[in-house]
């Protein structure tokens, strides 16, 4: 294991949040391969998973080249759990399809907002990257919206399952916007239009929540009856504090690597 400390530069740290989230989320989504409720959804979740792992790689590459972190394979697959800064939401097992779908819907909309803001940054390379990746995530959100609507308005059973999943996912979705130590400094960074590009977690969360609740109301979900407005976020991920699920996942991810540390694969 590399015990290289977490980056202290605010931008590097922020990108590491993004990268770790995408890596872990991509892994979870890939677990639907071969097991989806219909073949089309196996394929869709696999596409999304590939995008996510690909995005993680892009950010780890940037962190390697511009911020002095180890190479992407080392950074991604050779870090102890306590140095992973992914959120609780992404590390949870896939659950039933309703859970995975609601998570996907919450998560990708949040990623979309982050990419939108990141595409305002001064660094042209990162700006271009964020713009490109945002285009891919746009499709994820289309996919999630279509399915949320179909299953919330499908049958009695599907609606009930979706509502249950919403209650389960919501606190962890709020946890995506955990505040972190470099936040203030990053909020002061000026973007390419002369304005700050990063609005901070609180603002991102409000923006995300407003959009999500609006959609739910449109799909006739009684968000107050569900109690979504008075939910406490699940925090800790950005500080390396995780649920029991991340450790076993990391163990699986690194199982082959660990067979022979000298080998190349």
């Amino acid at each position, binding site marked *: 294991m590399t015990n290289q400390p977490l980056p202290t530069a605010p931008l590097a740290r922020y990108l590491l949040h993004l990268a770790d989230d995408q890596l872990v989320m991509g892994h979870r989504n890939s677990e639907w391969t*071969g*097991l989806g409720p219909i073949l089309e959804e196996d*394929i869709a979740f*696999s596409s999304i998973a*590939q995008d996510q792992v690909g995005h993680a790689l892009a950010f780890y590459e940037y962190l390697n080249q511009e911020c002095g972190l180890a190479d992407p394979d080392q950074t991604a697959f050779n870090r102890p759990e306590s140095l992973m800064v992914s959120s609780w939401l992404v590390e949870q097992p896939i659950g*039933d*399809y309703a859970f995975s779908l609601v998570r996907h819907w919450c998560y990708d909309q949040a990623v979309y907002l982050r990419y939108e803001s990141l595409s305002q940054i001064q660094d042209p390379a990162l700006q271009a990257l964020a713009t490109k990746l945002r285009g891919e995530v746009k499709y994820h959100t289309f996919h999630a919206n279509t399915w949320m609507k179909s299953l919330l*308005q*499908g049958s009695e059973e*599907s609606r009930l399952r979706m509502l249950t999943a919403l209650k389960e996912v919501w606190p962890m979705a709020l946890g995506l916007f955990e505040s972190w130590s470099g936040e203030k400094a990053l909020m002061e960074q000026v973007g390419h239009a002369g304005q700050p590009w990063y609005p901070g977690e609180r603002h991102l969360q409000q923006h995300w929540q407003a959009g999500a609740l609006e959609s739910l109301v449109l799909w006739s979900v009684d968000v107050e009856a569900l109690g979504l407005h008075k939910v406490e976020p699940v925090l800790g991920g950005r500080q390396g504090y995780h649920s029991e699920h991340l450790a076993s996942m990391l163990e699986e991810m690194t199982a082959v690597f660990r067979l022979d540390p000298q080998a190349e694969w």
Partner: protein
Amino acid sequence: MYGGGYIPAGVEETKAQAESPELLAQFEARITRGEKIEPRDWMPAVYRKQLIRMIEQHAHSEIIGALPEGTWITRAPGFRRKLALMAKVQDEVGHAQLLYSAAETLGKKREDMLNDLINGKSKYSNVFNYPAETWADVAVIGFLIDAAAIVNQVANSKGSYGPYCRALERICYEESFHLKQGHSVFVWLATGTPMQREMLQNALNRWWEPIMHFFGPSDTMSQHTETLMRWKVKMATNDVMRQQFLNIYVPKIWDLGLSLPDPELRKDESTGQWLFTEPNWDTFFKVINGDGPCSRERLAVRKVAEERGAWVRAALRRADARYATPLA
């Protein structure tokens, strides 16, 4: 990936004769001229039945085949391997989707096919009833099983049923990438550390018999397939395909300094034919009939997936019927 050239039964030509001798003559003449048969064209009932069985088995093999490799996605070492494997397994599921659509054009619904898979009425390729124990198994599957599948699918893509041929053309195009990727993992292990080589050699030893089984029993043991060949349902005999495979891939394996667990395996230079120890066909039939090392597990996983997804499909049935259109 594909389920091998094994078609369980011959065709009773007399039944086709009884339907309509004239239509049968026209049908056969079209096939002889190299024309494709399309969904709305007249075809003998036995032709339809045989094709459904074959395409359905092929489709099942693709989704069941996604399971052993799929379990290695989360364990794949490093970004390059992981992303390639994810895309590969996704392709295989996509192949199933294309093939079910092709079979649907012959009148059997996807849901019925999936039910027949789960209840054991319909088969899939034997090779997927073996476990993928190590990362080297991923190499052997991706390189050699996909290679064997390509031999089979390229042959079948020249068959007589239009929708199946078109699906296969697209599938073969994607399979060529799988082969490249499998070959890369394979070579990397073969030229790696002693541990990696040993892992690969062990996987190769384990997989050799299933690979020899892949194309089905020798033509001398199979029921007669002349009618199927004349109707271009079956395009090459099991022995011909096995020989083609051995001829291309055994030298590649030997060149890497690996061995194969058959002391008799060699090419007879005077005939150009490969000689080998006949694999145990009793094992083959035992596995086909549901007694392979992973047969129960594979079907159980598939069954759980179907059951867990039932509520989603039920909700969609209410919404619309958008998944019924053929794709190829």
